[in-house]
């Protein structure tokens, strides 16, 4: 099937996507929301419509804010394509969508990518062992299945989500044995000049303090941890860590790692949008104009996929991008767009207040971003950091040559779990900035789909001539 023409395709069902789709549909545009998950909400509001967690206090008020977004989306008349993978967008804005093992093209007049965030890799030795997961994974299990860990649990890393999960576990009656905080002590000094702005954003402060105090009351917290090893044969048995020159080891059944979130840029990179290295958030972010339009015509990027701002900011950024799409499609004048965007822009400013303080305060330590020689960098192809450094010694300048030498980044995750590690490891080995090193060139499909599915895509006379030889 080809070319059902729609006005706007929104890709991703988190806060940015939900708000963008609702805004477009309310403006009278034919709008499709394409989302890989079975139910709306993205990861932050995961399972918001069908979580089995009955006690609302466990997940907290911030989580339940997602209900209003979903309700507005459902009222808006936007079409929801759930469990649907958007695996490419062509220059003509044909969105390749795979549903139930078959692909079709949705031809859109505008595309808004709201691909959200993923957790920054934390490549400590042993992180591939069963029993090591991410803090985000623990939270998804809680939201979608009401599941909490039953054994000895260690949380390790840095960033607000670490303490949020600890608090959610505590409210759910689950025990966390230990928190290993890897936040570098030097961060506070760097963050300090942004403290006044952060203090103005009172809600952050209150929330952060509450989370910390809550964790301190119930869990042992070790600060200043500067190395972590997940140990065990076949599965996790213990966690070894180093703090102020002292080696310690604790037994553990589950280790949950986290050191912040980064934009999920695989789709925006695959379709050729320009990206730049963000030296404060330490990640790639798409290059955007004031209305979130990317460098590829007709494509806007909203939410954490455009740079981390959190859920509240994401929804506003979705609305702003949607209003500009409506302007492009002629249902809003420029003046109407500007007028309607005033509210979301003010809300966005409020939501972003204090963000830089947080970014700098929770910037993960170099030693946890650029791993030890024996740590796996690429989980799919099991490439360790030493091999990457050996490649640099051969003169390899960047991730793409390195990838071809080592298969690093060639597995099914397509570089999502190793891309940043590889860029920063090469940059450190070469002694240049990550922005000079670059990122993998990502190619569609952005997630694997079957050969049979591709074989059924529409063909052209030119394609037949280009391929059928003999």
């Amino acid at each position, binding site marked *: 099937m080809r070319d059902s023409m729609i006005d706007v395709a929104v890709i991703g069902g988190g806060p940015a996507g939900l708000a963008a789709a609702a805004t477009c549909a309310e403006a009278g545009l034919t709008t499709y929301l394409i989302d890989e998950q079975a139910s709306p909400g993205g990861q932050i509001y995961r399972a918001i419509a069908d979580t089995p967690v009955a006690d609302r206090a466990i997940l907290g008020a911030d989580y339940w804010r997602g209900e209003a977004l979903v309700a507005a989306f459902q009222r808006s008349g936007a079409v929801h394509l759930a469990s649907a993978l958007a695996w*490419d967008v*062509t220059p003509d804005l044909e969105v*390749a969508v795979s549903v139930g093992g078959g692909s079709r*093209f949705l031809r859109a007049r505008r595309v808004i990518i709201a691909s959200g965030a993923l957790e920054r890799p934390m490549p400590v030795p042993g992180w591939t062992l069963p029993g090591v997961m991410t803090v985000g994974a623990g939270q998804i299990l809680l939201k979608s299945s009401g599941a909490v860990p039953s054994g000895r649990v260690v949380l390790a890393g840095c960033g607000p989500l670490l303490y949020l999960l600890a608090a959610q576990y505590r409210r759910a009656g689950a025990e966390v044995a230990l928190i290993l905080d890897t936040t570098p002590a030097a961060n506070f000094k760097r963050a300090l000049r942004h403290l006044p702005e952060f203090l103005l954003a009172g809600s952050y402060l209150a929330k952060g303090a509450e989370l910390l105090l809550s964790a301190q009351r119930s869990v042992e917290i070790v600060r200043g941890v500067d190395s972590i090893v997940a140990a065990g044969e076949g599965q996790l048995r213990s966690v070894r860590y180093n703090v102020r020159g002292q080696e310690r080891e604790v037994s553990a059944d589950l280790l949950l790692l986290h050191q912040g979130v980064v934009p999920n840029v695989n789709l925006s990179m695959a379709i*050729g949008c320009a990206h730049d290295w963000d030296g404060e958030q330490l990640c790639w972010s798409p290059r955007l104009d004031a209305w979130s339009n990317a460098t590829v015509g007709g494509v806007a990027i909203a939410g954490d996929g455009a740079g981390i701002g959190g859920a509240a900011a994401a929804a506003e950024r979705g609305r702003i991008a949607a209003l500009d799409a409506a302007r492009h499609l002629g249902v809003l004048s420029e003046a109407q767009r500007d007028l309607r965007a005033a509210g979301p822009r003010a809300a966005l400013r409020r939501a972003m207040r204090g963000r830089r303080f947080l970014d700098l305060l929770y910037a993960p330590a170099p030693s946890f971003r650029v791993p030890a020689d024996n740590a796996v960098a690429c989980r799919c192809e099991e490439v360790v950091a030493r091999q990457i450094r050996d490649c640099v*010694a*051969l*003169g*390899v*300048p*960047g*991730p*793409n*040559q390195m990838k*071809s*030498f*080592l*298969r690093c980044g*060639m*597995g*099914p995750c*397509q570089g999502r779990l190793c891309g940043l590690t590889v860029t920063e490891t090469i940059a450190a080995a070469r002694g240049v900035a990550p922005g000079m*090193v*670059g990122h993998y*060139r990502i*190619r*569609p*499909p952005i997630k*694997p*789909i*079957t*050969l*049979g599915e*591709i*074989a*059924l*895509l*529409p*063909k*052209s006379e*030119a*394609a*037949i001539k*280009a*391929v*059928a*030889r*003999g």
Partner: protein
Amino acid sequence: MGAFDVAIVGGGLVGTAVAYGLARQGARIAVLDEGDVAFRASRGNFGLVWVQSKGLGMPEYAAWTKASSDAWAGLRDALRDETGIDTAFARPGGFHVCLTDGEMERRREQNKRLHNQPDMVPYEVRFLDRKDALDLLPGLGPEVVGVSYCPLDGHANPLKLLRALHAALARRGAAYRSNTPVQRIERSGDAFALTTPAGTILSGKLILAAGLGNARLAPMVGMTAPVRPQRGQILVTERVAPFLKHPLVTVRQTDEGSVMIGDSLEEAGFDDRVGHAVVAMMADRAVKTFPALRGVRVVRTWGALRVMTPDGFPIYQQSAEHPGAFLVTCHSGVTLAAGHALNLAPHVAAGCLPDAAFAAFSARRFDVRAAA
């Protein structure tokens, strides 16, 4: 930035293979390469070491190709001994699959014309119908009409080959400079002076192996390299347990288990993006060839630019105006790697490409055609 016996412009399969061959001759070498993102035909290579069907219109090319295929086991062993990297070269015999009677007929006709050429190097090519082909290639789909088979055909891992060549060069002390595109070439006494953003490099000899970049560089030393990009697209799947020993011209299983599916011939200028219709067509032929591949997942697709001359054959030439400057360009960097390292490099080191073997490959053949 230094003085060298030989400067090789281009760090892809062609440049590093010639460089490796020269390093084996004891030359002090610099390989000058572009950065991480460039039109790198070497990274897009399908990995065939292919003999059948090559050389229609230039029997010298058939002989040159076969000689490289014959030398490949030696290259594999040398690189493995020097670097520990196994390039996974194997020569189990390869197949070209035909999906219609028409394709089969054209294939036979083309093969007849190839082997009827005067001075054609003799080798065996067999045509098998579906039933006989099934004995060698279990799992062929019902739409396969027949195959051509050549026992000389093989394959290798192009990425491991590139890495092994780089590693071997490093071990032999060659200088490899990335992010060092050559902007200008001049004579400086007996030497060539190569201007780069990182400084000037002096070399006694100069090899232009810059792929599509040769078009710009060759005139600086009195030659022409009429090369154009020709896009080829490839799909690669997740790893699969070994099921296919033989390479097919459009389907092969790598030593790591992934299945590569090729390929297209497209005149798309310098656009190396992927086009769905072409990818769909390639996938369609692949599942018709092996229906069991239908459920295997494609992990990546890519487009790469072949380095094509007007007649599709390589150029090997020493500049008459600037002796010591050599032009090397081809679109079969894997098949010809052994030829470049073991057969071509010694002549370059000696400073002479003998007419008997190389006259046919000079780019002057295009001048003759243009004049005629």
